[in-house]
């Protein structure tokens, strides 16, 4: 089966700002795909291109086997979208908005809607202007999760939710995955992605800088090593952030150079050694910082 989303070499500029700069993105059927990146990396722009709300300047975009710009209406029957910044009509109640959006999609499940409203603890009778940011987000989430669609595009869906509601959201996404539906979940919160996602793409400055399963990404991270040696080391090759203090050394090393680094250490006689396992956090920090990606 072909990819649900397949983006290659997409660029999009607004005036002189380049929001997407050769973006590649592949989302497979039935997976929950994390779309990670710092603020302003181009996540929302990419999702709007996938929705046919923006037209890509160059590159190819395929969504559910169609062209999101040309076949927007047909494709929209099969997907649901939660914007990052949900604004509601001030004079419509939350319940009305949920029903309207559900009906304007491919239809939705009334029982599931009721259940979701209850689980998210939402009062559907309030008017749009009376909702807080988190409650507006819940309105959009209930409408999307109750919809009978193949693909969910969620743009930072938990940014206004409290931890309790975040847990409900996590359960809901797990259910969606169990039903075999596909989810593209943009976020800048690592823990959320670690909990939910099968595969992850990290985007920075409009370009995907890493992509793969979490295990693959962990593999990309560096191990931190601190060691006390018998004699001062005579030069360590292939390591990062090396600090030598007499017989003590500390450094970071990429997973594929770990073996080589350890051999160099044992040549100087290892008295003690601590190794801190790689965390994804460090990988993200590395990509989030403003230095060039590689």
């Amino acid at each position, binding site marked *: 089966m072909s990819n649900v989303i397949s983006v290659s070499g997409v660029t999009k500029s607004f005036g002189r700002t380049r929001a997407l700069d050769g973006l590649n993105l592949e989302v497979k059927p039935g997976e929950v795909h994390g779309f990670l990146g710092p603020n302003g990396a181009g996540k929302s722009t990419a999702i709007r291109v996938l929705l046919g709300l923006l037209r890509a300047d160059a590159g190819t975009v395929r969504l559910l086997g169609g062209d999101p710009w040309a076949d*927007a209406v047909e494709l*929209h029957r099969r997907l649901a979208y939660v914007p990052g910044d949900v604004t509601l009509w001030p004079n419509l109640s939350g319940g009305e908005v*949920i*029903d309207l959006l559900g009906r*304007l*999609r491919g239809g939705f499940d009334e029982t599931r809607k009721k259940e979701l409203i209850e689980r998210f603890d939402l009062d559907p*009778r309030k008017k749009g202007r009376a909702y807080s940011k988190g409650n507006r987000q819940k309105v959009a989430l209930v409408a999307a999760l109750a919809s009978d669609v193949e693909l969910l595009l969620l743009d930072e869906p938990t940014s206004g939710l409290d931890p309790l509601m975040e847990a409900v959201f996590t359960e809901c996404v797990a259910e969606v995955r169990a039903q075999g539906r596909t989810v593209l979940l943009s976020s800048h919160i690592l823990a959320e992605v670690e909990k939910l996602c099968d595969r992850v793409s990290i985007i920075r400055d409009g370009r995907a800088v890493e992509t793969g399963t979490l295990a693959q990404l962990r593999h990309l991270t560096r191990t931190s090593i601190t060691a006390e040696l018998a004699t001062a080391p005579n030069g360590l090759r292939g390591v990062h952030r090396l600090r030598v203090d007499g017989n003590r050394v500390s450094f970071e090393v990429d997973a594929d150079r770990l073996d080589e680094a350890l051999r160099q250490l044992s040549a100087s006689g290892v008295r003690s050694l601590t190794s801190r396992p790689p965390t994804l956090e460090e990988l993200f920090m590395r990509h989030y910082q403003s230095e060039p990606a590689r």
Partner: protein
Amino acid sequence: MTGTVSLIRLILRRDRVVTPIWVLILAVLPIAQTTGIAELYPTEQELRRFAVSFAGPALEALYGPVTHWNAAALGVWRAGFTPVLLALASTLTVIRHTRVEEEAGRRELLGSTALGRHAGLSAALIVAALANLVVALIIVLSFVKQGYPAAGAVATGLNYAGVGMVFAAVGAVAAQLTESAGGARAIALSALGGAYLLRVAGDSAGLPALTWLSPIAWGQKLRPFAGEVWWPLVPSAAAIAVLLTAAYLMAGRRDVAAGLLPPRLGPERAAPGFASPLALAWRLHKGALFGWSAGFVLFGLVIGGAAGTAADAMAENRQLLEMMTRLGGSANMSDAFVAGVLSIFGIAVSGYAVQAALRMRAEETLMRAEPVLATRVSRAGWMASHLVFALLGPVVVLALLGVAVGLSAGAGAGDGVGDLVGQVPRVLGATLAQLPAVWSLAALAVALFGLLPRLVAVAWGALAAFLLFGQIGALLDLPSAVLDLSPFSHLPHLPGGEVTVAPLLVLTAISVALLAAGLYGFRRRDLG
């Protein structure tokens, strides 16, 4: 009051383009009218003839009674609609910087800083007062510099600033009442419409007592350049004091972002038919449609009722009768009166049409179009749902206006049912004949929305320009090529005038072309 000064600077920064424009335009209108009239009618005899012939009951209904036949008094009278526009600008300015800010949540951000509870309201009112003061100063200086009496100049300035400040205070009260800025605007504009209506009714139906209820009339009762009377300043000052006290009392007692009128809960689920972009558009547009309809029915009833009285007054004036017939207009005075008034209402309805069309842009910039267009709603379908209201809404409003004027004029004529049957279709035809011009402005707004969405405000600029052309174009001796830009200059003078179909067809064709361009542009451009 802490922080008021910083807020004033913030408001001035945000409004640095808009406010100077309306201040300047509104402030120079009276002197522009005066110098225009003085040049065209240099002698007292000619001025008197102008007053008798040109004025007439239709314009007196719109602008207020003529007080004297010197150039300055006539100029101020001819600019008599300007204080209403100043009131409109003042009240909207106050609401824009109070309730709009609260509804958007920006007030809350500022409220957390070292800012007094009343700083926002005070800053908005002070800016409105400054704008009105500048208008008054420009008026005084411009008249005095041209050698007109200082007393009259001061009375004119106070007339303008007084009306402006009363409605700035009305805006301050309205902003306390509802949670939504739209609701506050509706309350303030209804008050303004009501005040204008009371003045029109009082002056044209011969019930001067009614005018004492209208702040707009208080300004005119200062009689600038016609033997000034100062004590009508008292009701203006009293009204401002009472309204401001009420606004501050209410502001002191309520929570930030809350209104005094309690918000109501909505339905838990949508009605079964609430499942299309048209159903959504209906919910978004119906308030404005009902409001405009109700306002125009009221105006229609007053104008129709005044038509008979006006006709009697005009019939006694042989000279005017001759002039009207010579101009190809109708010799029927009642018709001439109605036609004169309708030409202004056509422009007002265009304001509604432009507002309805630009609702699309508002939905887009407020990010409410996005979730709808991410469903199976096509861009064309979404646009069509709003165009129903931008194009057919004016039909409803103008039709109701025609029926109201016709019924009330027919009833006033007192010839029984036959007259009712005769009047309604004629007046209805006259109001509906405004449609091609109204549509062309709505279509201009749609074309801008599709092709140059950042410049949609140009549609309002065009509307304002056409309004000015109608008001002072002839006096400023603008070339006819410029005046012909206004779609309203191509409309037949109805009821009673001759109908030429060609201009109406051309205007409709231009509208269709502009709509098509807008649709083409919107289907191809990025959203947002």
